[in-house]
């Protein structure tokens, strides 16, 4: 993974010193609340419902075991001994004290971590596929490009005060898009042209929140040398022309929609004409330098399906289930990608205790070259596990609560922290996740239902990405009472779509039974091999709607 040199380290340390001074001046009342707000947000510090929240960047999801141990250690000494992995490859601490944050940042800097631009109206932490570099069908490893974008966007002098937050995600596989690039401000698909040159299909103006939209293609192919000048051009147009009169209409998606993609593209091209070929054009030497940080680990020459794996698969149904759901084909023979799920019943989705973080770090050291990934679905990934070690890893993962064999199933839900933590939330989301996990606890049934994305958000800001869940649940407030609106038909991959609202919202206690009715409609209507989303797309919303509201009729 990327290793800081003296310059990267110096920058992070200078940011810590700067924030220490800003915090001191705020606490001394030399900086007003209003002035401190964007400064602290650009350092990931929110003031939440009960306490501040610190969002720590995990650039493109890569984490060393030493970094994870440091996060665990920080959560113990400065917080309540747990953290929350978010959908955008960050770790959130829910209970730090403002006056401790500079010390936390100083400790993070010791392990090459920070909270730079994890919030605020600036370019946020860039995200990508959690299986980058190990999945067999990727065009190239996207991580060096993510690192290039990370450096370009860090303390970008022109774009620190944009109309709104700005999120970039990168994907490099044709078969799937695990980074949800089409619902980002800019989505980048790495591809090769006919000449074999590497470049990017650029998608712009996707996003969720109040006005959910799937992005549109602004360019089919931008050569990689031109990536940064093209990004500068897009964001410069947005910075000058994006709406600033209404924060709900300030995202780039609104500008793109208002102008139309043709007009937006022509403005970007006019801007780019001045930038293309200039100093920010990326030389090959830089790609080579960055790629050098993401070279393959020392894989052994191994065969697929070692004897201890095949025999265990035959004799243990539990292991076979875990293997089928929670592990993934690796590009190297004899290896497997393993997801450690953070979706154990009784624990909020994406939460990990300090003890679990230590255990995951140990597993990474023991089984996966000391590295982990953080996924968009709020799980952890060990990317390089020898197949002959899978049985041992499974036993250890079960013991740590990481082996819930439900990856991609109904109960592997994305869930925001909701009203239990977040000041913006209209409703709680964690109890809804718990209710669904308790109701749908029959693994055979879950397996029969197959892949279903269920996403829960506690408010329309959509941190839980409810719009792009095959089933989305949105908390709404009605005269001080919490209700839940259900949508179906959303998707976040290459076939991205925004879900449709089923109808009037439901009371909290009704949610599981409504989901059950939706599943019944699916099971009754599906053809063999048809996923929930496919059935929905074939039969439409009506039968689901009728079933969900049958009682009321």
């Amino acid at each position: 993974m990327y290793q800081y040199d003296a310059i990267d380290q110096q920058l992070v340390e200078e940011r810590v010193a700067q924030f220490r001074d800003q915090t001191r001046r705020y606490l001394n009342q030399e900086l007003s609340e209003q002035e401190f707000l964007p400064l602290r947000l650009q350092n990931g510090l929110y003031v939440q419902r009960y306490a501040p929240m610190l969002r720590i960047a995990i650039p493109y999801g890569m984490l060393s075991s030493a970094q994870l141990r440091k996060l665990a250690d920080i959560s113990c000494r400065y917080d309540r001994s747990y953290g929350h992995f978010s959908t955008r490859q960050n770790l959130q601490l829910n209970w730090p004290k403002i006056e401790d944050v500079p010390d936390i940042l100083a400790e993070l800097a010791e392990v090459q971590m920070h909270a730079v631009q994890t919030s605020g109206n600036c370019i946020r932490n860039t995200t990508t596929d959690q299986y980058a570099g190990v999945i067999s069908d990727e065009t190239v490893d996207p991580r060096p490009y993510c690192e290039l974008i990370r450096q370009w966007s860090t303390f970008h002098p022109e774009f620190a005060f944009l109309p709104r937050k700005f999120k970039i995600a990168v994907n490099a596989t044709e078969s799937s898009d695990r980074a949800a690039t089409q619902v980002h401000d800019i989505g980048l698909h790495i591809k090769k042209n006919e000449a074999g040159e590497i470049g990017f299909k650029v998608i712009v103006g996707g996003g969720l929140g109040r006005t959910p939209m799937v992005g549109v293609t602004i360019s089919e192919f931008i050569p990689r040398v031109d990536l940064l000048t093209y990004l500068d051009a897009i964001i410069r147009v947005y910075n000058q022309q994006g709406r600033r009169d209404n924060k709900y209409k300030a995202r780039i998606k609104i500008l793109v929609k208002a102008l139309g993609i043709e007009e937006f593209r022509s403005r970007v091209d006019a801007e780019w004409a001045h930038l293309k070929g200039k100093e920010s054009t990326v030389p090959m030497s830089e790609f080579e330098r960055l790629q050098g940080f993401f070279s393959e680990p020392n894989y052994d020459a191994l065969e697929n399906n070692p004897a201890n794996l095949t025999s265990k698969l035959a004799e243990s149904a539990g292991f076979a289930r875990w293997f089928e759901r929670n592990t993934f084909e690796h590009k190297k023979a004899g290896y497997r990608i393993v997801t450690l799920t953070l979706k154990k019943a009784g624990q909020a989705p994406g939460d990990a205790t300090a003890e679990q973080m230590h255990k995951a770090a140990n597993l990474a050291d023991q089984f996966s070259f000391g590295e982990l990934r953080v996924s968009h679905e709020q799980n952890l990934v060990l990317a390089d596990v020898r197949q002959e070690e899978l049985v041992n890893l499974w036993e250890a993962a079960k013991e740590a609560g990481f082996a819930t064999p439900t990856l991609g199933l109904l109960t592997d839900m994305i869930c925001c922290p909701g009203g239990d933590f977040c000041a913006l939330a209209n409703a709680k989301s964690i109890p809804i996740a718990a209710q669904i996990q308790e109701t749908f606890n029959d693994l055979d049934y879950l397996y029969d239902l197959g892949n279903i994305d269920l996403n829960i958000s506690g408010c329309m800001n959509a941190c839980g990405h409810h719009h792009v869940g095959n089933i989305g649940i949105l908390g709404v407030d009605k005269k001080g009472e919490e209700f839940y609106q259900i949508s179906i038909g959303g998707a976040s991959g290459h076939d991205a779509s925004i879900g449709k609202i089923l109808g009037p919202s439901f009371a909290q206690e009704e949610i599981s039974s409504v989901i059950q009715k939706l599943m019944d409609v699916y099971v009754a209507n599906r053809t063999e091999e048809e996923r929930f989303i496919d059935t929905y797309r074939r039969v439409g919303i009506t039968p689901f709607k009728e079933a969900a509201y049958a009682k009321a009729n």
Partner: protein
Amino acid sequence: MPKLIKNGEIVDNTYNWLQDAEQTVTQDSIVAAQKWLSEKETIGNVAGIWLEAGDGVEFLQDVDLSQFDVIGVHFPAFTDGRGFSYARLLRERLNYQGEIRALGHFIPDQLGYLLRVGFNSFQFSEEVDLEKALDLHKPFSIAYQGDVADPRPLFLRR
């Protein structure tokens, strides 16, 4: 007249920023750019012009900017980042060499960014302690991106 920070020092302000279109224009005035453009035949010599957020810079591309000692950029709120692009475009696209002055509601903690996009003078609101602001008058010692002072990104300097 209140002082300002210019080229890293606290100095006297010798120009008069005309925010109100009715104010009398003199050769020390910094006049709204749109007003100057429509009245330039009659308005006489001025110290410079100032841009309102939303103006953009395209409308200045055929104007000889070397006639101005100063171009002001107004920040209606310190979170309104349009002026960052304007300063950069004045320097890099319109090749303006004179003083670029930040006006209005910006804060000392933004000085690092403002310097990098080409501002070199800062007319703070009156409650700002300029001595304290001067402490923040420096960007970080290193930067990944190119900027107005050095257009080379770090990958050309590393």
